[in-house]
Each structure stands twice: as structure tokens, then as C-alpha cells.
């Protein structure tokens, strides 16, 4: 009883203090204590990096200089890009310039980092420029492990057998292949062993393409060749939707690891059979983007960057923060744009504390909400909340929190579109 009273009183005092002092000392938190302006370089302008660049400017109230290095002049959203394949969205509607970040004072450099000197604290760019930094934030994204697929070594083969797993020209090219596929044709999609970017994405893709085929090419088939033993994410929801909506269109085959590809005949080579398709869509094995190797960051399983979750710093390179799909995820944490955005903000909070000579929050928290479309008008979600566990030194899902949709529904398709508008703005505006 006494403890409760004391807790309540302390909580009240803290809230009152927050309200009162926010009005008299608005800019104390996060302002660097040094007289010279700190400079943070962000490399990679996807959900993680762009969010970090934006929030560095927002939360430092313009007192930290920020440079974003990104090769692509446009941000193209992977979320919602499966709807482009289904002919339900235009890629242009998912594409954004970095002008919003420029307006916030971010210097955007369209280039590629090819070297890093962690002692001198500078990065070297393909174009020749060297940029010094006080702290560095890397958002390398994922690279495809094409070395696993001899038949896709040639660039020409990769234009024939598409991944469309990074939204952009490949998305449009795969849309053209699907549109040109004859009624009665076979669209085969191969799914790599987890972990890979966007766990439910391949199943969403099969769903929305099935909706397209059902309406326009009702005799066509989809073959889902999954290297995993079962549907990786939202299993019951996808399985029910496929059984009810697409029973004669989608054929799901688990434990089908892709060994090679014969691109000219669009043939997937599996352990015990070869599957020929009219459109072959290979989502290759994945690993942290090349930038992680350039920076020589410690990797787990030779693929993913190990980070300290309290600051998102590389465990091998303190002072270098890493966010997004490139990191070795915590238990039950998917590689999603939503989490990359959240990790970007976590890293920024830590960077500003560290620049001010303080320790980052010992108890960071991340949420994930991920919507998948079943068709253009119905969606499902999975959500989770993750907290730092000091004992296990990782983020753990909060027991009792998070969950899935009860059933695909139209309301959540509207919410999925609303989510997209808000996360794009939170990342880029």
C-alpha cells in the first residue's frame, strides 16, 4: 500500500515536472554540449536511413548537421509494391524524392560509399568525395546472394528471371511479364529460407497476383516454391484465404529450396525436380548490404550485422550505428520497413544522448505493425512490441502484446493505405 502511494506520488511529480519544464526549458534534451556543431553521416536512404536523417534534424532542432548518402535519386516504397504487380497501384504513387529531407536541412549526396576510415572518421565516395563525421549511421539494406545461383550470374539472366524484391524497375518489369502471361500460364515464385526482407511479402504477392489472375486469366496457376517448411508469417490467415479464394490458382509447396535456375527456359531447379514456368520470379537468399562489408562490421552467420540494441551500434565498431534489414534481428523480430523506421529513431535518440555526453536509454522499445493485402480490398496484419532485456542483451517480444487479424477484412485494407501515407511522411516529409 505504502509502495503504491509512493509510486503514484512520484509518477505525479514526474508528470507535473515534465509539463512545467517543457515550457521553460524546451530545448535542453538532445542538444549537444560541445560548442562545435556535430556532423552525423547517414548512408542509405531507405526506411531506416531516411527516418534517421529526418529525426536527427527534428530532435536536435537543427543543431546537428546531417548528410545522407544514397545512390538512388528516389525513394521507392517496397510496402504496397505488390499491388503494382496486381495492377492496382502505380509505382509512381510509391515513389518520392528526398526534397522533404532537403527542406529540413539534410544534405543529400547521390553517391555510393566505397571506403570507411573508422579512426579518421571519414567515408570515401565513388565520386571521389571524402566526408568526415562525428558519428556514422549505416542503413545498408539487403543484397542478394546470387553466388548461390550459378544460372543467375549473368546480368541478362537476371533481367529475364526477376526478383522484384527491391521496388523499382524490376517491379514494373515483373508487372509486364505477368500482364503478358497467357491465360493458362504458370507464374512460379521462389521463397528463400528465412531470414529475408519482409517475411509475409512473398505470400502477399502470391495472394494479390492470384486476385489479378482470377479476374483476368482464370485458367492461370501460381506455384509457390517455398524453401521454408511452412508459410513463414501470418500462416493461418494466408492458408485460409488461399483455400477460400484461390483454391484452383495457388499451389503451395513447402521445403522446396532453389538450387539453381535455367534462365532461358525459366526453369527452377530444385533438389529432386525441375519446374518450368511462364513467369519465374526468384527471391534470392539475402544478406546485409555491401556497405556492411565495406565497413568490415562484425556479422552473425556471415550475413547479418550484430548490434547493441540500446544504441543500434555495431558490436565491433562503437560509434557506427546500423539499422534496418541488414542487422541480425532479435527473436521474433521481422525485417520490415516499419521496424527499420523505428530502429532509425532509436538510433537517433541514442546518438543525441551520446553527443551530449549522456548514456542512451537503457530500456528502448520498438513496435512493428505489418499489413498484407489478400486482394485489393482486403488485408490482414501482424503486430508486436519489443523491449530491451538487460539480462539477455537483446530485444524480446512483450508477452501478451501483439497479435494477428482475426480474419481478412476490408477495414484493414483502408488502414494499410493510411499506414503507408503516415510512415512515408514520418520517413521523408
Amino acid at each position, binding site marked *: 500500500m505504502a509502495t503504491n502511494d509512493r509510486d503514484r506520488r512520484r*509518477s505525479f*511529480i*514526474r*508528470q*507535473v*515536472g*515534465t*509539463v*512545467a*519544464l*517543457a*515550457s*521553460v*526549458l524546451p530545448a*535542453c*534534451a*538532445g542538444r549537444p554540449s560541445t560548442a562545435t556543431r556535430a556532423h552525423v553521416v547517414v548512408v542509405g536512404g531507405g526506411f531506416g536511413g531516411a527516418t534517421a536523417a529526418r*529525426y536527427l534534424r*527534428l*530532435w536536435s532542432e537543427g543543431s546537428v548537421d546531417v548528410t545522407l548518402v544514397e545512390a538512388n535519386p528516389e525513394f521507392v516504397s517496397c510496402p504496397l509494391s505488390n499491388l503494382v504487380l496486381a495492377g492496382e497501384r502505380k509505382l509512381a504513387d510509391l515513389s518520392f524524392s528526398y526534397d522533404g529531407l532537403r527542406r529540413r536541412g539534410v544534405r543529400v549526396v547521390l553517391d555510393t560509399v566505397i571506403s570507411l576510415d573508422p579512426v579518421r572518421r571519414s567515408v570515401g565516395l565513388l565520386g571521389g568525395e571524402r566526408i568526415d563525421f562525428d558519428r556514422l549511421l549505416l542503413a545498408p539494406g539487403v543484397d542478394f546472394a546470387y553466388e548461390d545461383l550459378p544460372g543467375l550470374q549473368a546480368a541478362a539472366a537476371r533481367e529475364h528471371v526477376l526478383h522484384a524484391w527491391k521496388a523499382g524497375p524490376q517491379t514494373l518489369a515483373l508487372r509486364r511479364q505477368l500482364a503478358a502471361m497467357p491465360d493458362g500460364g504458370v507464374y512460379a515464385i521462389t521463397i528463400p529460407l528465412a531470414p529475408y526482407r519482409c517475411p509475409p511479402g512473398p505470400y502477399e504477392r502470391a495472394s494479390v497476383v492470384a486476385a489479378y489472375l482470377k479476374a483476368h486469366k482464370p485458367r492461370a496457376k501460381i506455384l509457390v516454391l517455398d524453401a521454408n517448411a511452412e508459410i513463414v508469417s501470418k500462416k493461418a490467415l494466408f492458408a485460409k484465404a488461399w483455400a477460400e479464394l484461390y483454391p484452383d490458382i495457388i499451389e503451395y509447396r513447402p521445403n522446396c529450396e532453389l538450387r539453381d535456375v535455367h534462365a532461358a527456359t525459366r526453369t527452377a531447379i530444385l533438389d529432386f525436380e525441375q519446374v518450368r514456368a511462364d513467369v519465374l520470379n526468384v527471391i534470392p537468399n539475402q544478406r546485409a548490404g555491401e556497405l556492411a562489408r565495406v565497413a568490415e562490421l562484425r556479422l552473425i552467420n556471415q550475413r547479418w550485422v550484430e548490434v547493441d540494441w540500446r544504441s543500434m551500434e555495431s558490436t565491433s565498431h562503437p560509434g557506427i550505428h546500423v539499422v534496418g534489414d541488414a542487422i541480425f534481428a532479435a527473436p521474433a523480430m521481422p525485417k520490415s520497413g*516499419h521496424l527499420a*523506421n*523505428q530502429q532509425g*529513431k*532509436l538510433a537517433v*535518440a541514442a546518438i543525441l*544522448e551520446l553527443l551530449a555526453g549522456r548514456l542512451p*536509454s537503457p530500456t*528502448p*522499445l*520498438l*513496435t512493428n*505493425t505489418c499489413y498484407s493485402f489478400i486482394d485489393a480490398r482486403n488485408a490482414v*496484419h501482424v*503486430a*508486436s*512490441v519489443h*523491449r530491451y532485456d538487460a539480462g539477455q542483451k537483446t530485444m524480446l517480444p*512483450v508477452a*501478451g*502484446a*501483439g*497479435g494477428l*487479424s482475426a480474419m481478412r*477484412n476490408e*477495414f*484493414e485494407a*483502408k*488502414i494499410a*493505405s*493510411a*499506414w503507408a*501515407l*503516415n*510512415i512515408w*511522411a*514520418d520517413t521523408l*516529409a
Partner: protein
Amino acid sequence: MKKLHFSLVALLGLAAAWPVAAQDDTLARNLVASCANCHGTDGHAVKASGMEALAGADAAKTLQKLHEFKSGVRPATVMQQIVKGYTDEELALIVGYLARQK
């Protein structure tokens, strides 16, 4: 009201109280950032999204809603799942921070 609050803090010792308050304000800011993906930066939802604007919303009303999501009284698709990841103290910080946004 603010004047009253400030005197109370002063009474309790400004020097001792302010770091805690600053920490709480930073914590509130960080927590609200975890809502921003769906509800907009600092609760400023994109108008065209149709999401309810939480910036400037009455703290007590928002807090009541969050507790209703938590208890299951208020039906929802995802909020009843997300809200259970936050402590009651964190929810109080979140609604206070959102209410202060213009």
C-alpha cells in the same frame, strides 16, 4: 495551471527535479515516435490518411481510450494488441506529450 505546477516543482527542489523531468520528456518523445508510423510524427497524421489527429488531443480522453483498448472494452483491430506492450506510466507519458503538440 502551469504556474501552479512550476511552483510545486520549485518547492520540491528544481535542481533535483529537472533532470528527471528532462529524462521523462525525452522518454515521452521516444515513446511517441513508436506511434508515429501509423499516427504521424508527434501525432500529426497525414490528413488524407483519415487517421485521427492525436496531436493536441486532450490527455485524459486519449488515456481513457488507451485503457479501454487495453481492457478490451473498446473494440479495435490492432490497438488492443499494441497497447498491451506499454506500461500505464508510459501511456501517461505518451498522452501528455501528444497533448502538448500544436
